[in-house]
């Protein structure tokens, strides 16, 4: 199966495959190694499924491993990064088994990424249209010149930029338009999955709303699966279907968005929600989370959240809780949910 031509999958994804996930990540673990220092466990044993047209929110404070996870999916880790365990299956292809040449052909054409602050990543001395055209030709060398221009116009229109701005340069675009252009570039080869790392940070709320609106339209119209990396729960509440809350490199909670916000089971998720200002209750004191996330090279022995957790017990200091499966597709790694858990998985001892 693995030797099958990659391009065949483009057609395969067109019929809706509701049951089968587009992207399936299982027990993924990433270390940062910089001898002689001990390895930093940036991501440990993270699993999730992403269906067609689904938006997954990857949430956590800075340094919780969410960006590392995103980069590992793309196999774009910095030099010290090592994928030490797990599997990443993109439409039946095991990405971690591919050699770099095959991965390079899949990257962008099947799984594309919009980077944080991407709008500043455009080449300032080349027309935006040319830069998108280059992304197209990179993966389809047979495409003709006229067809490329047609495709660029199509992409620009898709992200809400008038086609006549194709020949303009990045400085003639506003910040929001540059971010749209970057999304157009990510869409150039019809990928099945887009990983968007903080796509609206540093943008105004109105522009942020425009970008979020664009992303939800793309998933509706193209069936695009989106992984949205963010620290802003407000964005998650706006457009995500499922949420994966990360803390100290592990999954704290993985749940449908409504449950995560209205019946959160992990104390960290609860604390994050309490720290969020509520426009309906102005002047109310916000609850901050005292302390700071753990350093990934010096993790506490027990539960990683225990040092900051208001409900921490004796037991939490000694052993790390497994990720317990709860009713309604909710998962939480906390001893408090052990009683109601249907099952456990994702503990470090499994194969």
């Amino acid at each position, binding site marked *: 199966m693995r030797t099958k031509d990659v391009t065949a999958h483009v057609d395969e994804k067109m019929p809706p495959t509701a049951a089968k996930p587009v992207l399936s990540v299982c027990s993924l673990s990433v270390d940062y190694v910089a001898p002689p220092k001990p390895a930093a466990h940036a991501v440990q044993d993270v699993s999730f*499924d992403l269906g067609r047209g689904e938006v997954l929110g990857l949430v956590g404070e800075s340094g919780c491993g969410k960006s590392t996870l995103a980069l590992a999916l793309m196999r774009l880790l910095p030099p010290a990064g090592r994928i030490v365990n797990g599997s990443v299956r993109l439409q039946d292809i095991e990405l971690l088994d591919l050699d770099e040449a095959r*991965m390079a052909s899949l990257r962008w054409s099947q799984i594309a990424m919009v980077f944080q602050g991407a709008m500043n990543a455009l080449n300032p001395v080349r027309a935006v249209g040319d830069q998108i055209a280059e992304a197209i030709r990179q993966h389809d060398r047979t495409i003709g010149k006229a067809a490329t221009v047609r495709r660029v116009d199509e992409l620009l229109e898709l992200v809400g930029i008038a086609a006549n701005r194709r020949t303009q340069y990045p400085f003639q675009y506003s910040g929001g338009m540059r971010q749209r252009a970057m999304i157009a570039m990510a869409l150039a080869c019809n990928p099945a999955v887009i990983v968007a790392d903080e796509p609206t940070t540093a943008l105004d709320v109105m522009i942020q709303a425009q970008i979020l609106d664009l992303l939800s339209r793309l998933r509706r119209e193209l069936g695009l699966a989106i992984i949205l990396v963010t620290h802003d729960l407000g964005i998650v509440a706006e457009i995500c279907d499922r949420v994966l809350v990360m803390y100290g490199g592990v999954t704290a909670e993985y749940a449908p968005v409504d449950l995560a916000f209205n019946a959160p089971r992990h104390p960290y998720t609860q604390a994050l929600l309490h720290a969020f200002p509520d426009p309906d209750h102005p002047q109310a004191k916000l609850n901050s989370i005292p302390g700071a996330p753990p350093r990934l090279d010096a993790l506490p022995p027990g539960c990683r959240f225990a040092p900051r957790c208001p409900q921490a017990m004796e037991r939490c200091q000694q052993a790390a809780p497994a990720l317990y499966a709860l009713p309604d597709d909710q998962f939480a790694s906390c001893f408090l949910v052990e009683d109601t858990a249907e099952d456990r998985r994702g503990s470090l001892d499994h194969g």
Partner: protein
Amino acid sequence: MESSHPGGLTATMRNFSRNRMGMVGLAMLLLAIALAVFAPVIAPYDPAKPPRATIMDIYLPPSAEHPFGTDDAGQDVLTNFLYGARVSLMVGFFASFIAVAIGGVMGLSAGFIGGRTDNILMRFTDIMLVIPDLPLAVVIVALTKPSLWVIVLVIGLLGWTSTARLIRSQTLSVKQRRFVTRARAVGAGNFYIIRRHILPLVLPLLVVNTVLVISLAILNESTLSFLGLGDPTAPSWGQMLNFAFTRGAMSAGGWWALLAPGIGIVWVVLACTLIGQGLEQVLNPRLASHNLSSTKQMILRPPRTQSQHAPQAPDQA
């Protein structure tokens, strides 16, 4: 305990001491300086009182008596080489000091004051930049009485342009950083801001630049001397080359008379380049590469066989 910030001068120097290439360059330069300083001790002869030379002493090949051979006048090449190092290095240091001082002040004021001052200073710099240095230097030195200090002055006054441009752009970028606006908002004056906020961030770059300007100045001095415009009372390496070249060293087979000063120049220039590159690596740690091509390194997980467990279906039921 961390005692300084990675971007500062002290930390730059400390990191530099771990840079192999830079340390090799520094050792090479220190050796050259030591030879120059201790020339009277090391040199087998006194250049002021040369031994009486006959026609038989001209272009003698290297021997125990003359380790580097003798030159066209029957003088010991090693002695001239050691004393020439003094002249060449001195010209290099003094001229680059002048160049860096002018360039630094020009760059700082143009970048910091901005507006019309910047415009005038930079147009002037551009004019200096397009005038070919060497011909102008040749004309000036030829018109004055050849003296070491004239050469130092000419090289210094013509060599500041690249420094000015570099320092200006660094000043501009530091000036636009938020902490400068914050200092202004606090009420700090221009002089305070330059001294406390701009200069510390410009300084490491200035040091790198100085090292490169030194090698350039030594090269320029050699060129002028080779063209016969050197100070005859202070023979430098360039002048040794000039004498050897114009007085038939090659036809007489006395290659050693050319080799010693040539190696000396290359040695010092190479030393400065290595130091400069080492410093640059320390200041620009982002030169580190990406490991996209080395897949085997990135993925270290144990090989997996068709493990098809989805999160919804716990694998340890």
